[in-house]
């Protein structure tokens, strides 16, 4: 047996990096897919609507306060009543992007009958799921870059304002946080694609969770907060604030809220807190923070998002590694 081991060691080494082959193939599939086109179109339209309706207020803000630090970033954060701002749209629609690139990752290979052929090639088994995760992140990064370029470009042209270097670094920071946030949904979708035999089941399960968090999350948090700290017309400001604080804490169980906290701070240099901002406070502290301070403010939200993404992917990875080829 010993002579065999000495022969085989180099042979094993020459087969490293199979995940790159998987990732390259999957990324090409994503880029050519109609899914990518549709989602970029959908998110761009939503973003353009947000920027378009925000054009008035942004113009006013620019006229009113020439010392306002980051007019350009207003494109992504400012919005009139009822229309969510661009970064909020990404918070709502981003999960769709993640789910779209992950829900059929493993069960698609199973139902097509390509998985046994794939695992019989000289690659490690985990390289399949790793490659798919990397390809998904790549596709998300590409789609998001396209959407931001379209929306930012439109805004810059329409308003005639260009980004400063500080705006750009903040936009890049936002971009990275958004990728991590969407990758969390990608990891969730991949987990379901390992667990559910059918792609449709996995997609529905992932979308159900998305609905619960993005639509009903706020509702549930509100109900719970009201039950604990009941407020009515006679309540003191203190009581109202307690209620609001509790609601926010509950909402932070949702990745959606973590993303909002983090991007809200990153895109708005004058925001001093991820918590509840009382109007007086906002006016009281007009000075802009450097990016590093904004990152510190959002630190634990960023860590929680990263940990959630890694945790979900680890769950998908372990489940996949334990499954039989013919499950």
């Amino acid at each position, binding site marked *: 047996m010993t002579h065999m081991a000495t022969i085989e060691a180099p*042979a094993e080494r020459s087969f490293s990096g199979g995940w790159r082959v998987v990732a390259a193939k999957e990324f090409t599939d994503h880029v050519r897919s109609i899914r990518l086109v549709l989602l970029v179109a959908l998110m761009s339209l939503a973003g353009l609507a947000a920027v378009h309706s925000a054009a008035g207020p942004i113009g006013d803000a620019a006229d009113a306060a020439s010392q306002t630090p980051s007019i350009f970033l207003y494109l992504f954060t400012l919005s009139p009543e009822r229309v969510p701002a661009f970064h909020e749209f990404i918070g709502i629609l981003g999960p769709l992007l993640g789910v779209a690139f992950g829900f059929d990752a493993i069960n698609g290979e199973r139902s097509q*009958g390509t998985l046994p052929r794939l695992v*019989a090639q*000289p690659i490690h088994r985990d390289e399949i799921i790793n490659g798919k995760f990397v390809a998904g992140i790549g596709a998300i990064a590409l789609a998001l870059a396209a959407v931001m370029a379209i929306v930012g470009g439109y805004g810059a042209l329409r308003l005639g304002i260009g980004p400063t270097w500080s705006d750009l670094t903040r936009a890049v920071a936002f971009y990275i946080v958004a990728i991590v946030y969407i990758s969390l949904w990608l990891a969730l979708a991949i987990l379901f694609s390992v667990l559910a035999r059918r792609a449709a089941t996995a997609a529905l399960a992932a979308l159900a969770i998305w609905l619960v968090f993005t639509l009903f999350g706020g509702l549930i948090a509100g109900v719970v907060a009201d039950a604990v700290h009941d407020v009515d017309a006679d309540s003191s400001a203190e009581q109202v604030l307690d209620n609001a604080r509790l609601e926010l804490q509950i909402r932070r169980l949702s990745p959606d809220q973590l993303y909002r906290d983090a991007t809200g701070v990153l895109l708005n240099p004058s925001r001093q807190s991820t918590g509840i901002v009382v109007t007086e406070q906002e006016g009281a502290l007009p000075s802009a923070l450097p990016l590093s301070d904004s990152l510190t403010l959002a630190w634990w939200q960023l860590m929680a998002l990263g940990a959630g993404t890694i945790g979900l992917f680890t769950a998908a990875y372990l489940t996949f590694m334990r499954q039989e080829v013919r499950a």
Partner: protein
Amino acid sequence: MNVSAPAIEALGLTKRYGDKLAVDGLTLEIERGEVFGLLGPNGAGKTTTILMLLGLTQRTAGSARVDGIDPARHPLAVKSRVGYLPDDVGFYDDMTARQNLRYTADLNRLDRRTAQDRIDRALEDVRLLDDADRKVGTYSRGMRQRLGVADALIKQPSILILDEPTVNIDPEGVRELLLTVERLRTDQQVTVVLSSHLLHQVQQVCDRIGIFVAGRLRACGTVDELASTLDDRWSFTVALSGVADPVALLCTVEGVRDVTRSEGRWSVSADRDIRTDLHAAVVDAGGRFEHLARDRADLDAIYHRYFQTEHAHDGSLARSTP
């Protein structure tokens, strides 16, 4: 590599899923250049055995060597030299045959030139070169199956494992596929392991056959060797001339149980070797033999025999469970 080693060796190979023994102590040796048929009904453990040989599933006990290498310890080395056509093979339907094979070549880290050469050659081997740039979604089942063989050939394997390659394809497709297997063996000296529950096909191309029932290898050998294990069966084919009533005459021989007519001859079954007595009886009656031979058990008989004992087993199990 290790040329002296057999292509495949298994010693006490066992796989247990929960309480169920899928493969129960398989011991087997397959020589280089051999076409070996793994014959057995569905659920007998054929695919599980193949997955263990490829290192795709953990064995519970026993050991295995494929091309002299332990698949549990060096799965990549084994997978780089064993071509595998899975049961119910699938392809990416929206990609062409060539693109599908290109992905396999990339996963085997072949450079562009080598990949192109091998893809062309493999497609030619399975007679799909003319359809190479069509999307696989438009392929018939037989074509997919042949593409599966081409896919397994991309890595220029020394061993080819085909799991149920002839299921669900039309007779012409089966013929094409078996011809391909024959060609590969003669032209490229590939060792072929072919699993099937269709005995006639296995018989056509295989040098040796292993009969696999309920996780155990019940018998193993050439068709002739397997037939000789059924020598408690005494049946003969007789053709006579110059005898007025052959049936009456044949029935006078002591030990004859039954006489039936088949294709112009007589099939005689008996409970002992009656050839000497039969000869005497016919000569006494003034007749002549056109033909007298003892029937060999064919694969059908072999297969049924092993399966019937298994069914008897099932029956007793069914009775014992309320």
